[in-house]
């Protein structure tokens, strides 16, 4: 049995809570749960799912570190989190773990998004976070999928099939959604409306990220990184290549898990 210790990382986000188990350089297992206004319960559920996936029992875990918006909330019993680490630190460490050449990670969360610039050891150089009008772009993605009657993956395929360039208001999710529905009501194709809606998300994220210099390699964290249509638009707007990560929605949780030894 590998003598290195097993650590757990919990990323307690606004909408989804993610958990991961890491031993040395190896990811043993991961799981997630809808936060649903009960961060502690969701953290427990996510951790249980990660343990099952990794076939590891709770006692074998040497330490748990939490990150994300509700990192302090999930510190409460019964999970017994030992340490917490801010999201931007977890993002930097997690991104480096998954790609050691990365220097900038753009984390698109359900409610908030940010860009983190770091050096080769994960020390922070700069961070930019979104403003209030740009909140909820992840939730907007789910809402648009529902409005177009497709699954979350389906929204990406739909957008990729777009043939006509439409655009919606890019100020906030509420006006983007109302204009997207307006386009549908005019008889525009669902694929084109899906593409216009995704471009709203990418435009906002890219605008925020490009407020600071983006050092290569640029990677993307968060569930939306798995949406191919978004990943097609992002490099164009950033005028930078974007390298895909596997397990993008677990970057924060991974970063937390491997931060157990590091300074507080």
């Amino acid at each position, binding site marked *: 049995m590998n003598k290195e210790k097993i650590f757990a990382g919990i990323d307690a986000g606004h909408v989804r809570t993610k958990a991961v188990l890491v031993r040395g350089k190896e990811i043993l297992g991961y799981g997630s749960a809808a936060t649903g206004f009960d961060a502690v319960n969701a953290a427990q559920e996510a951790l249980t799912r990660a343990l099952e996936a990794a076939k590891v029992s709770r006692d074998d875990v040497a330490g748990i570190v939490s990150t994300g918006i509700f990192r302090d909330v999930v510190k409460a019993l019964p999970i017994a989190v030992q340490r917490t680490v*801010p999201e931007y630190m977890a993002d930097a460490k997690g991104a480096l773990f998954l790609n050691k050449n990365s220097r900038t990670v753009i984390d698109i969360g359900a409610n908030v998004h940010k860009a983190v610039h770091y050096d080769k050891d994960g020390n*922070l150089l700069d961070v930019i976070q979104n403003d209030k*009008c740009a909140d909820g772009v992840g939730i907007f993605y789910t809402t648009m999928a529902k409005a177009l009657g497709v699954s979350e993956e389906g929204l990406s395929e739909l957008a990729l099939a777009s043939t006509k360039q439409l655009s919606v208001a890019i100020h906030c999710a509420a006006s983007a959604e109302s204009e997207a529905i307006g386009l549908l009501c005019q008889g525009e194709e669902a694929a084109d409306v899906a593409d216009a809606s995704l471009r709203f998300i990418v435009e906002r994220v890219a605008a925020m990220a490009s407020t600071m210099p983006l050092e290569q390699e640029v990677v993307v964290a968060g569930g939306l990184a798995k949406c191919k249509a978004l990943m097609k638009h992002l490099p164009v707007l950033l005028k930078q290549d974007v390298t895909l990560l596997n397990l993008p929605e677990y970057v924060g949780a991974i970063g937390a898990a491997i931060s157990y030894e590091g300074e507080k």
Partner: protein
Amino acid sequence: MAYAVKAWNDFKNYQTGCYRDYLYATEGLRVMGSTWSVLAPLKGLGDDIHLIGGEPHAASTAGTLPDESRENIIAAESAGLGFHSCSYLKLFTGEVIRDKIGITDGTIKEGYPKPDLIWTTHLCNQHSKWYQEVSRRLGGIPMFAVDMIGGGNAEKDSKIVNYVSNQIELGIDWLQRVTGREYSDELFAKAVRNEIKVLVLWGNICALNRHAPAPLDERRLIALFPPAVVDRTTDESVRLYETLFEEVKQMVATGQSVAPDQRFRIVYFGIAHTYGHPEMARILRDVGAEIVASVYTFGTCGNFKGIVNGKWSWDPIDPKWVDELDLSTRRKAIEELAKIVLGWPTWQGVRSYWALESMAQAMIDEYHADGLLLAPSRSCETDFRNGYVGLQRIFKSKIPTIEYDTDQVDVRQMDLPGAQRKTELFVHLMEARKRRSA
């Protein structure tokens, strides 16, 4: 041990006194208008002039009566004012619409006391439009707005000084016609000297914050400058600022500060006091991060050397210079007054991004800042929003910089959760920078 400012109560009473005079005066003239305008011209009409100024009143009411202010803002929106109009304006006009007014000592008076005339200014897109709206709603109050034009180095540009002075001259004739009062040039000259003296004194007090530890912090600065905004033409206001100047000099001499733990010195550009929110204040206090200089408290009504061979200098002006000013004719007094107000940092920053940038760089250098905190106000149309996103882009690589997403008094538009996340980051970046340079 944290020092408690002795002059504190005198300042509070003076400010509240001015408001109570406006509310309950039984004689004299009630004058409404932006206190960013030149106030001395009003005092040539006599010393029974009771002032209420849109901005300081809205700011202090929002602090004293938050729920009442929220109702005022919504009342203005319900009456048709733009949803994105200045929140000071909405609060101030909302009080007129609801016909009740709340002031700094917590009183809420039913029945809004109508002003006899409106004397104001116009610089941002909205300034005089506030008072056109209030004048219309109160049945057409006579109104005179002086266009303060603004821009970097304005006080050294003769065409701008003449333009503003010519308007003030016409304004004084108008004041006499509208009030039917004789105009006293002695009272006017005395008011001009007082006004300039208070503005220069405030600049000197702020300059003392260059010392370590800085004697005053943003919370005290924000509380101590409004009396100068409310009415800075009285002998009493001059005395207030002279005593405060002596007290702060004494604090510097003895190394005293209202916030002694100043491991991190912050320069603050913005109106909104989001940093003052309990959560943000706790994060900053825990690491000894204090705001030692800010363009809002220094520059709303304070004067400094200004642009000196192309670069901004926050060096103060010697108060004795004010005593030697030649105010022997009305025109001379008007021109000195126009120059001093055109010299305000805020007026210069509104219309010249290069002046604002130079102010930020100078403040960071002269006040030895460890971090730049930007708080562009969502509904403000002056230099408490203009150019800030650009400032972040320019300064982000030089010094830890964050930008709050906030508003001046409309709590609904403040991103407090976001501000908390950004404050944690701000502290982290400043600590990391200090470690790297240590």
